[in-house]
């Protein structure tokens, strides 16, 4: 269930070019959130909240980690929050990446691009607990945008790709050749063009995609965030039915 909480900020620091890590304290969210879910942050002087995926939780220390990119007015103001402050948060929201049918030694693929990388880290944490075999392909604009490489390496086989080749493999995440693997599922999050390419390249695999859209309410009431689907309704709400959808249900 979504709760409205005023959360203490443990830290809010830069981790790469235009990229920041925000750690919040919340016993409720750290103990109930699942990979794929997001928090909806109220940033001072902004009419609308901003959605950010949960990148990690620490049940023992009751912390929740968010990773965000500086893209506009809201995130510009978010970086000004200090450790001693509190921030108003709605969450956890949305549906998770489906992993219950996975068992030990199943092979899965995680593909993330830019600000789509964060939710995959939380997912990788959970999958490693299940001892699922992961191959993770993470795409960044260039070396300076790279973050969390160490954290991902600790969780499994990680391949970094940069558009300009300044680090790791040069090119897009879908250019990486993984034909030797036999994946049961793929999990992907990133910009729409990337998600389309992934869905196309791995059309033979049951995959799960996490989408983004500009939110109004973030709880399913305003119809701001719909995405076309194959069912009779013809649409689903990203904030409530998503952000994660099966590759088979969405029309993109």
């Amino acid at each position, binding site marked *: 269930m979504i709760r409205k909480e005023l959360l203490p900020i443990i830290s809010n620091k830069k981790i790469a070019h235009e990229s920041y890590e925000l750690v919040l304290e919340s016993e409720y969210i750290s103990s109930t959130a699942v990979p794929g879910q997001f928090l909806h942050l109220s940033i001072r002087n902004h009419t609308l909240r901003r959605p950010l995926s949960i990148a990690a939780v620490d049940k023992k220390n009751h912390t929740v980690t968010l990773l965000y990119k500086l893209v506009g007015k809201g995130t510009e103001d978010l970086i000004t929050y200090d450790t001693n402050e509190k921030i108003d948060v*709605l969450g956890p929201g949305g549906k998770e990446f489906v992993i219950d049918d996975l068992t030990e030694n199943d092979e899965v693929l995680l593909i993330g691009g830019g600000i789509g990388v964060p939710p995959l880290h939380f997912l990788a944490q959970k999958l490693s607990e299940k001892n699922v075999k992961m191959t993770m392909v993470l795409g960044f604009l260039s070396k300076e945008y790279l973050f969390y490489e160490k954290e991902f390496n600790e969780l499994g086989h990680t391949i970094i790709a940069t558009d300009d080749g300044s680090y790791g493999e040069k090119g897009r995440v879908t250019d990486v050749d993984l034909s030797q693997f036999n994946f049961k599922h793929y999990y992907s999050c990133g910009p729409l063009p990337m998600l389309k390419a992934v869905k196309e390249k791995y059309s033979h695999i049951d995959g799960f995609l996490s989408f983004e859209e*500009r939110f*109004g309410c973030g709880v399913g009431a305003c119809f701001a965030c719909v995405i076309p689907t194959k069912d009779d309704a*013809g649409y689903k709400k990203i904030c409530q039915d998503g952000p994660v959808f099966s590759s088979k249900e969405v029309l993109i």
Partner: protein
Amino acid sequence: MNLSIQLPGLNLKNPIMPASGCFGFGREYSQFFDLNELGAIIMKSATGEERLGNPTPRVAETASGMLNAIGLQNPGVHKIIEKEIPFLKKFDIPIIANVAGSTIEEYEYVAEAFSKDATINAIELNISCPNVKEGGIQFGTNINMAEEITKRVKAKSNVPVYVKLSPNVTNVVEIAQAVERAGADGITMINTLTGMQIHLPSKRPLIANRTGGLSGPAIKPIAIKMIYEVSEAVDLPIIGMGGISNADDVIEFLLAGASAVAIGTANFQNPLVCSEIINNLPKTLENYGFNSIEDVIGKGHI
């Protein structure tokens, strides 16, 4: 303190209700507070058939406000009666059905369908939606069409009809007088003002529909002015809306001439805002020396 107020078809325990389209059909917000606290609920606009609305992005943030171009997406009047009203029935609050359409016939059809459902207490006639190609605002910006559609919908309705006015007009008083002539039981105002935001990185209107409806605190002074003028020109009760986010705002709308208020955009920032305002209202009224809601209505007029 007694917060109750009686309006045509609406026995309100307090003057606070969520605005159409900002509260869905109540389900989502019922996880945050008990909907029984509300004075009433206004449902999202209903059309004859299901509508998928406009392409996304549908919302954008503006200074002290937001733009939206949802485009009346809704499952259609019959699915609403079948799937949503049974949920709302469980609460002991008046239900206001918001009626929309592309043609007068569609408006009539939707109003008639809702009138057959005994749980609907009143109809809000949305002739002011700026986000659809046909219907909506075109009825709300022309005196004759506003009068005509109100008459026709009234004839098909067996519950009181509140007409929702658009602020995108040269003279809102003329429109209000027209719907009064046509037999409206009340007025709700204001709907959103048409606006646009251009997204600099892409050099394109941010909202896919290009234009959207401006709402939030930014438009409050416009709503107050229009309600103040309309309340002096017609004898119909007014449900006021436009940028309300706290109990002080509610009192400002009542002083301007509204008999009750609806809260829209503020729900997105704070899902508990309706409940919090209802709880703060008695204390706030007291601070300004009022003893009841009746005591405040229209008292801001010189």
